[in-house]
């Protein structure tokens, strides 16, 4: 029987194929709960989930909050601007203080890569990475895997094209690790300044020409282009980026008719996707948002099962409370 044994969910790079599939299968089971008139189950009743978002976020934060609420957990919210971090407390001290309040799961978003992993080593409660710097965004990666499997029926053997700022994107990294482990072929496409060639050595195909990569793709994931990238001179102009790498109806004509278009949000309409494509019949962007809650419910549920509100290392016997 497959079992989840990790205290934390920090990234998809460390996970095995079986662990990825367990997470996606659990998400599929949880999806039905959000379709009920009473969108709540008592699975995490009495547990506390702390949301520690040290970088602004609306969607991910709302998604985690709803996921925790639909599992009946209690929620504690921290924001970077209002926390004692601005008074000079270290992240680890903040995390230890939150843990001392008997919190079971700590969800962390930070703009520095590696912060959730560092906190996870220092506390006994479970840590879920909600995005760290340009490292990983594991729950978004799982959302993409889940949505692709739901729409295409499989992941193995599919050609998945990720377009945009690969260099800075934590979503691209989580997507890449998850997709490769589950047997998809990944092509990374974007301006040479934003696509690190080193990704080729890890098993991805790298392309600088969207018109060559798009016709082969079964799935395209467009990434958000951060507005700062132009000032930092990674791209000459937004107009040029859109012309070469933006996906519009004209470029879609060269693609497979059953191609699905994904985006982790928020979309820069008219930059990486034209409005007609973002709202078009091939777009599954809003379904990604719906699936986000089911995926985060699965993540919170599975990591909560590995400890019991005390320190992490206490293995408890499993009494047979089940009817045989």
């Amino acid at each position, binding site marked *: *029987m*497959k*079992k*989840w*044994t990790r205290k934390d969910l920090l990234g998809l790079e460390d996970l095995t194929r079986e662990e990825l599939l*367990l997470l996606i*299968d*659990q998400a*599929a*089971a*949880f*999806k*039905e709960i959000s379709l*009920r*008139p*009473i969108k*709540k*189950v*008592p*699975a995490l009743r*009495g547990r506390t989930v702390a949301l520690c978002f040290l970088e602004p976020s609306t969607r991910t934060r709302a998604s985690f909050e709803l996921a925790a609420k639909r*599992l009946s957990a209690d929620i504690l919210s921290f924001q970077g601007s209002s926390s004692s971090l601005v008074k000079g407390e270290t992240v680890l001290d903040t995390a230890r203080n939150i843990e001392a309040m008997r919190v079971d799961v700590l969800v962390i978003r930070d703009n520095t890569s590696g912060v959730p992993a560092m906190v996870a080593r220092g506390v006994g409660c479970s840590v879920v990475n909600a995005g760290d710097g340009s490292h990983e965004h594991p729950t978004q990666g799982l959302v993409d895997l889940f949505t692709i499997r739901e729409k295409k029926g499989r992941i193995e053997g599919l050609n998945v094209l990720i377009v945009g700022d690969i260099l800075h994107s934590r979503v691209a990294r989580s997507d890449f690790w998850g997709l490769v482990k589950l047997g998809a072929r990944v092509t990374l496409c974007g301006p040479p300044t934003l696509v690190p060639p080193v990704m080729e050595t890890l098993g991805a195909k790298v392309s600088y020409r969207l018109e060559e990569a798009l016709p082969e793709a079964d799935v395209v994931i467009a990434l958000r282009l951060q507005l700062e990238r132009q000032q930092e001179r990674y791209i000459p102009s937004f107009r040029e980026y859109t012309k070469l790498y933006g996906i519009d109806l004209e470029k879609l004509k060269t693609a497979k008719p059953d191609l699905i278009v994904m985006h982790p949000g928020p979309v820069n309409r008219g930059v990486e996707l034209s409005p007609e494509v973002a709202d078009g019949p091939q777009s599954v962007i809003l379904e990604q948002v719906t699936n986000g809650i089911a995926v985060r419910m699965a993540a919170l*549920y*599975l990591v*909560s*099962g*590995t400890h*019991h509100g005390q320190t992490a290392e206490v*293995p*408890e*016997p*499993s*009494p047979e*409370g*089940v*009817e*045989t």
Partner: protein
Amino acid sequence: MKAHVLDAEGIRKVFVRIAHEILEKGQGQDALCLVGIRSRGDHLAQRLAGLLQEMTGQPVPVGALDITLYRDDLSLVGSSPVVHSTEISFDITGRRVIVVDDVLFTGRTVRAAMDALTDLGRPESVELAVLVDRGHRELPIKADYVGKNLPTSKEQLVQVRLQETDGVDEVVIEERP
């Protein structure tokens, strides 16, 4: 070490009897529906629905319920058990719901199932049908339809095996290893 309690024919007969009892007791056949508790009760519910349809000529809606998230021992078991989805494609509000499970033991599963059902709607009534009642209740719960009453000691294991999941229809008592 092992005692056979029911074979395939025995299980079939028991279900024919339960189907008759359900029809005898109920008035409004239209509102009848069956909800099986995963992972064997759902198959039993399908079989019972088949029998009911043969007798009345009317299809009976069947759903499957996963009670994992409603268990009262979730915080005690070692790691989070795998959750399967609940598949009830009809509205249970106002219906006569018959919950179907394989073995009635402590009653905790049925308690969880009732909680899960009330989150899905407000049934007119809820009844319970089980293939085997082995005693040792820990909650005030009683089945309306019992295939076989089976006095057991707590150390024994009652194994229900079905064609759909195990390739064979049988109920056996085994000693705990």
